[in-house]
C-alpha cells in the first residue's frame, strides 16, 4: 500500500512482536513505538543518527552482519532479534570499553546519577570491568564563563557536535585527531571561551550524555540535563525545510 511517494507500509517481526511501520522508518523507531527496548547511547531523538556507539546493534534474519537499529530502515518481512546472548555480550563489552577508555569515576562526577553511560551500565548489569583502564590524561577546558569541557569524561558520541551544527546552526564543535586520541574541539582548537562561533546557548551541555560538558558551579551529582527543548526545535527545523 502506498502512502507518500516511495513510502510503503511494512510489517515485520521485532523480538517476536509483529509490528508495522513506514518503510522510511528505522528499526529503532518502530521498536520504540511498540514498546521494545533497544539500548542506545550516541543517539538522541531530534538529532541525526550516526550508528557510531554500536549499542543498538541487532540481528536481522538472513544477514550475517549486525545492523545498527538507529540507521537501518525497516523492510517487509524483516525478522529482528534484539536480545541474544551474543548481543548481550557485545553490549557489555562496548560499555566496558567506554568505561575503560577515559576517566569515568562516577562518585566525583558532576553528572553522577544523571549520566546516560552510568544508567545504561546499570541497566545492562555492567558492575565491573574485565579489561585494564587506559585513562590517558585529557585536557579540561574551563575558559568559557558558564560551561566546562572535561575531556576525561567524553565518550566521543558527538551529540554536542550534532546539536551545535544541526539545531543551533553554529558548528562550534567538531573532532580532531584519530582513534583514542580523538578530541572534541571548539572552532579550530581554540579554547571554548575564545570561540567566535559559540553562541553560548548551552545546548551541547544539555545533550552531553556524561559529565564531559557541564555548567559551572555544579558539585558532584548536581548536573541535571534539561533536554525538553530538543524535540520542539528539531520539529521547527523540519518545518523550516
Amino acid at each position, binding site marked *: 500500500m502506498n502512502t507518500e511517494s516511495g513510502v510503503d507500509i511494512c510489517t515485520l517481526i521485532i523480538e517476536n512482536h509483529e509490528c508495522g511501520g513506514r518503510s522510511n522508518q528505522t528499526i529503532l523507531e518502530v521498536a520504540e513505538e511498540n514498546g521494545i527496548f533497544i539500548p542506545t547511547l550516541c543517539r538522541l531523538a531530534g538529532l541525526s543518527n550516526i550508528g557510531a556507539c554500536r549499542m543498538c546493534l541487532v540481528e536481522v534474519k538472513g544477514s550475517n552482519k549486525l545492523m545498527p537499529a538507529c540507521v*537501518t530502515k525497516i523492510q517487509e518481512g524483516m525478522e529482528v532479534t534484539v536480545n541474544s546472548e*551474543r548481543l548481550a555480550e557485545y553490549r557489555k563489552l*562496548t560499555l566496558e570499553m567506554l568505561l575503560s577508555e577515559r576517566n569515568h569515576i562516577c562518585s566525583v562526577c558532576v553528572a553522577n546519577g544523571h549520566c546516560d553511560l552510568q544508567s545504561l551500565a546499570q541497566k545492562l548489569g555492567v558492575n565491573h570491568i574485565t579489561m585494564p583502564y587506559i585513562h590517558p590524561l585529557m585536557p579540561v577546558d574551563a575558559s568559557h564563563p558558564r560551561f566546562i569541557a572535561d575531556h576525561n569524561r567524553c565518550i566521543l558520541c558527538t551529540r554536542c557536535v550534532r546539536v551545535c551544527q544541526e539545531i543551533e546552526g553554529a558548528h562550534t564543535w567538531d573532532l580532531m585527531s584519530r*582513534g*583514542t586520541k580523538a578530541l572534541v574541539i571548539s572552532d579550530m582548537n581554540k579554547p571554548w571561551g575564545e570561540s567566535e562561533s559559540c553562541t553560548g546557548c548551552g545546548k551541547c551541555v544539555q545533550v552531553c550524555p556524561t559529565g564531559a560538558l557541564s555548567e559551572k558551579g555544579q558539585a558532584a551529582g548536581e548536573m541535571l540535563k534539561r533536554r525538553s527543548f530538543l524535540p520542539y526545535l528539531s520539529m521547527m527545523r523540519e518545518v523550516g525545510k
Partner: protein
Amino acid sequence: MNQDDLANIAVQTKQNDSRYDHVIKVCVAAGCLSANSEQVKTQLESEVKQRGLEGCCKVKGVGCMGLCAAGPLVANEGNEKMFQSVTPADAAAIIDDVVDHKPAPSAIVMDSNLDFFKRQKKIVLENSGEIDPERIEDYIAADGYEALFHVITMLNPAEVIEQITKSGLRGRGGAGFPTGLKWITVAKASGNRKYVICNADEGDPGAFMDRSVLESDPHRVLEGMAIAGYAVGAEKGFIYCRAEYPLAVKRLRVAIREAENIGLLGLNIGDTHFDFKVEVRLGAGAFVCGEETALIASIEGGRGTPRPRPPFPAQQGLWGDPTLINNVETFANIPPIIRRGGEWFASIGTEKSKGTKVFALAGRVKNTGLIEVPMGVTLREIIFKLGGGIPDGRRFKAVQSGGPSGGCVPEQYLDIPVDYDSLASVGSIMGSGGMIVMDDTSCMVDVARFFMDFCMSESCGKCVPCRVGTTQMHNILDRITKGKAGPKDLELLQRLTGMVKAASLCGLGQTAPNPTLTTLRYFMDEYRAHIEEGRCPAGVCHPAKAEAEVSA
C-alpha cells in the same frame, strides 16, 4: 579527435620508434628513481650522444619492470638483455652490450629467463616497463584508448556492462565484489548526476601495486574510468590518491592534461556527445579513507570517517548522488576486457576468481617486487618459484596477505590456490595484493602486535569497538611480547577479537582482528611460549628479560 586521428597517432609513433635499431629502457618508477635511475638515464643519454648514436639508439624512461629489489633496472627493447643494480658509471658498458654485443660485467647482467619474469601473466601491467608513462602517444601506440573509442561509438551502456559482467571481474580493492554487478547498480540508480571514483588511497603496509600502475601506465586507469563513466552515465570522475605518492599524482596530472589536449577526456570525446572530466583529489594520509564512505566524505571536504551502509555509494554516494567506486587495478583491467572481450578474460583464472592479480611481494623472499599472476596459482609457486624462495637458507614460516586486514597463512596451506574464496577459507583475504613473506626469524605474536598497532593508530575513532577495541587488543599483545601477560589476557584477547570483528562500523575494524585471529589459530604455541615459559621461540621479543628488568 576521431578514430582515424587516433590510428594516425599510433602509426606515426610506431614509425618514429622503428627508426631506432636499439631502444634502451630505464625504469623511472618510484623504486628505481630512489636508487638513482634518473642519473643512469642522463648518463646513458650523454653516452649515446658522445658516440654519435642518436639516430639509431634511443634511451627511454619507462614504468616499473617489477623486480624492484634489483633496481635500478635497465633493459633492451625485447627484454632479452636486462641489467640490474645499475649505476651511472655502468652506462658505457650497457651501450657496449646492447649496441656492440660486447658482454657487460656479470655483476650488472640479470638473467631475463628468471621464473620471476617467465611465470607472470601480464594484463594490468602489460605496458609497465614498456611505455613512457608521460607520453600519451606511447600509450596510444600500445592500443590505448581504442577500447574507449569502441565503446562510445559502437556500444550502448548496457552492452559495455554486459562485457564486464561476462568477464567475471571482481573488485581488486580487497573485498572482491563483482564489478559488473556494481556497474549495473549505479547505471540503474536514479539521479540527475552520477560520479565515478577511482580509489587510489593505497595504504596497506608493504603494498604498492596501485602506485606502480599509476606511475607506469596512468592512461590505462583514465581510460577505464571513462569507459565506466559511459557505462553508468557519469560525466565526472575523481581519482582519490594519497599525497604520499607525489610521482603518481604528477604523472596522473600530466596524463589528464595530455588526454584533454587531444580530446580524449573532457567535452565531446571522440566527436560524440559523451563528456567525461577527471579531477585528482589528494588524501591526507589516513588509512581509513580507503574505505569508500570515508573516502567520499573526504572528497566532499569533510572529516574522513565512514558511515553505516546501506545506503551504499551506488545508491547515495558523493554529494548524495549515485557513485561508482572502483580500485586502480579494477579500472586498469577494463580496457583490455573491452578490447579482447569478456569471454577472453573469463578464460583466465579459476571458476569464481577470473583474470590475474598483481601482488607486491615483500619480506623474507629473494625476489621482492611486483608480480602479476593468473588467479589460482598456488602460494608455493608465488613464493618459491617467482619469489625465488627464502634467502640465507632460512625456513619459511608464514605469508601475510591482504595487509592489516589479512591473515597469516602457515606452511600447511601453501598449496591452496590464490583466489578470493580459498584465502578466505584459511582466515586471510586477497586484499589489495600485499604479500609479506616471513621466515623463522619472525615472531608471530610480534607480527600480530605490529598490525594491531597499525590499526589502532589508523582507527578513525568514530565507533567504540574499533577505537577502544584495537587499543585494548594492542595493549594485550604488547604485554605478551614483553612477558607481562597472563592466561586471562589471552582469554580477553579472544573475546575482543570476535566482538571487534562483528560489531565495528566499517571494514577497518571488522578486519583489524584478522592477523591476531590467524596467528592465534595457527601459532598458539608461540603465544603459550611467551606467556607460560617467558620465551620467544623466534628470539625477537625478550619476554623473560623484560620480566627480570621489572623485578629488578
